[in-house]
């Protein structure tokens, strides 16, 4: 995940420290009412200034309706990335019309949202609502920037896995709307039959390369070696990253990378690497390029890659079994969070629960970005779609991505473990070292 990693490097800068800076009591945002009033007036001045900017923008022929709005100009501020913003703006408009409260949707790069909330919310510059992934919860909860959300008895309307994902230490913190996971994407021309087992897939893939029909046996990104995209082999072989308690939560004290199943996965991986079936040089871009050009029979990827695959005939299926066991990938759940520092908590809760917690809203979110709806009734509406069904089926055996902060200690160490296997280190030793490093990092 090197790209993700560098993207993480930048916002480290962004990371927080608000409290210390606010020791001057005259500038904390826990200001007295009097001060709050003044602040609001001042912020209105900002708004005026922004309006000027906007007017100039209009002269430049930009769209007027997307006018920039500063924090205090709207009753509700929502942060979402560019793919979700248009849908949210529709609902925001409806909320405005029905409730008479103004809503603005601000665009923030997806991977920046959690860091920005952690940094800016305590300083009073954060949103009321933000859209993100459940595995942010560990960091958000530890930083005290996300507010508990009582689903008001609506829990039954959602898939259990989705509701579980948004609960942390028994408290619910968000409203889920879509789940995503990787699956097997198969080029139906190059591989007419669905490979039931890992061995089948290896055989078909290698044959395609030998026949000259394909450049790579499988589009399975390994550059850099990828913990997320490899996890299904580990679970199929009986391994795990952290042991799961009975209630589904993860136990950071039990690292399973070097468990029996984990070491079996390492062995399998070593064989695949030796035979050249998996290739350390396959980056995300190579995977996309190969599959989109019909130069590989399989891609192991998620719904985000599909827009690039328009020119090939493909289908989406569950991942092949490993040693006869179903293989479960990580499942990520996306949804709406409410900031603990929301200026308008009531309105935020109303928007999330009453406007986004509807079948219609969940379907529209699906239309904009085909994640599997988390609401059961919405899912049933789209279950006929072959692709949704394929990803859904692949995710049924999956495991929620751990939201515990300790997961942050896993990525690099385990990634290095895979890389070492590619470099010829004994697979078992490589995973044992990775597990030791994870324990060391957690203990620091």
């Amino acid at each position, binding site marked *: *995940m090197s*790209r993700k990693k560098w*993207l993480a490097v*930048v916002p*480290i*800068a*962004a*990371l*927080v*420290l*608000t409290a210390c*800076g*606010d020791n*001057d009591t005259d*500038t904390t945002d826990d200001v007295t009412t009097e001060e709050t009033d003044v*602040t609001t007036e*001042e*912020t209105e*001045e*900002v708004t005026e*200034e*922004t309006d000027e*900017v*906007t007017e100039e*923008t209009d002269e*430049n022929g*930009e769209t007027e309706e*997307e*006018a*920039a*709005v*500063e*924090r205090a100009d709207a009753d509700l501020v929502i*942060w979402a*990335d*560019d*793919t979700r913003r248009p849908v949210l703006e529709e609902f925001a408009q409806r909320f405005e019309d029905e409730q008479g409260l103004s809503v603005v949707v*601000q*665009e*923030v*790069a*997806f*991977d*920046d949202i959690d860091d*920005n909330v952690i*940094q*800016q919310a305590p*300083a*009073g*510059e954060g949103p009321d609502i933000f859209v993100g992934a459940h595995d942010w919860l560990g960091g958000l909860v530890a930083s005290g920037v996300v507010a508990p959300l009582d689903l008001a008895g609506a829990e039954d309307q959602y898939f259990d896995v989705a509701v579980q994902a948004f609960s942390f230490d028994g408290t619910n913190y968000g409203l889920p709307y879509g789940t995503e996971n990787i699956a097997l994407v198969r080029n139906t021309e190059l591989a007419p039959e669905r490979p039931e087992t890992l061995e089948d897939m290896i055989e078909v893939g290698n044959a395609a390369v030998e026949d000259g029909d394909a450049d790579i046996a499988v589009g399975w990104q390994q550059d850099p070696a990828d913990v997320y995209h490899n996890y299904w082999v580990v679970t199929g072989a009986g391994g795990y990253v952290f042991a799961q308690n009975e209630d589904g939560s993860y136990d950071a004290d039990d690292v399973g990378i070097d468990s029996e199943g984990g070491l079996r996965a390492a062995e399998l991986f070593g064989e695949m690497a030796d035979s050249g079936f998996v290739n350390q040089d396959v*980056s*995300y*871009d*190579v995977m*996309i*390029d190969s599959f989109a050009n019909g130069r590989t029979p399989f891609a192991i990827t*998620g719904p*985000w890659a599909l*827009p*690039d695959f328009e020119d090939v005939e493909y289908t989406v299926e569950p991942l092949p079994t490993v040693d006869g066991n179903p293989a479960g990938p990580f499942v990520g759940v996306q949804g709406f969070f409410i900031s603990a520092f929301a200026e308008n908590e009531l309105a935020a809760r109303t928007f999330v629960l009453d406007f986004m917690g509807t079948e219609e809203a969940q379907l529209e979110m699906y239309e904009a970005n085909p994640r599997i709806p988390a609401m059961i009734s919405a899912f049933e509406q789209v279950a006929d779609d072959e692709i949704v069904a394929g990803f859904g089926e692949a995710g049924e055996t999956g495991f929620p991505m751990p939201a515990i902060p300790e997961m942050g200690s896993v990525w690099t160490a385990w990634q290095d473990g895979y890389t070492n296997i590619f470099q010829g280190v004994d697979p078992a030793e490589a995973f044992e070292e990775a597990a030791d490093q994870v324990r060391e990092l957690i203990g620091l």
Partner: protein
Amino acid sequence: MALNPQQAGGTEISDAAPPTFDYKQQGPKGARWWRYVGWRYLVGLVGIAFALMPAYFVLLAALSPTSTLQGSQMVPRDITFDNFAALNETFFWTWLRNSLLVAGGAAIVNMFLSAMAAYAFARLRFAGRRVGLLTILLVQMFPQLLANVAIFLMLVNIGQYFPAIGFGTLLGLFLVYLGGALGANTWLMKGFFDTIPRELDESAKVDGATHGQIFVKIILPLALPILVVAGLLSFITLFNEFVLASVLLGQADANQTLATGLTRFIGDAFAQRWGPFAAGALIGSLPTLLLFLFLQRYIVSGLTAGAAKG
């Protein structure tokens, strides 16, 4: 002397402009041509190839319909201008304007602040001069990652009293950018000022000029090449500056710079849209290149150098 330095750009290096002959007399394509001029073309060509080979792939990404950056095709399968068109649906032109205003404005002001300081360090003697010179360079060596947080908090607090320059304003970012005025550029200018003969100042002083006048009327014109270089350096750095801008500008569309605005396209590790990003980056690099193309005459004009030697 065959070549007057003023005609030849003023800074002829000896092996290029030997004083004793004119290569043209030997025929333009002869061995001497190679020795004195031809190799320069070769070096230039190799340099351009080195510089542009990776940049070519930025162009490919901008013209490609897929969203990837590292395509394996040398020649694109399909060429599309959709990525450029996609920019029009965003606030791209506003971002470009913001970047030009903030980076351009700050570069000009920084150039003057830096030049003033460089004058003091080059021409005046005072206590703390050596420490001061060292300090402005050492301060910039602090790992910036965490210091930015302090700047963020400062702007949030300033914004409570003076919203016009607080968090989420371009003016605030502009002020923060001025903080980098003193630094490596000051040293660069000081080094250049040191080479301007002091006799010029002395004679002006005899005529009653103050330091302010010497600075404005003598040093600045003579130091034009380095002023332009420092200004350009400042401009390029600030134009591409990402971290501070992303921390300080907030999220409003109309408030972004090119760097922060374009980064939205690639902000999701699993859904990066490199096409529009590359298209925007290419357009965004044009101001720098045009500026350099235009300002070069000031950087390498022989006139000032000649005059400096009195």
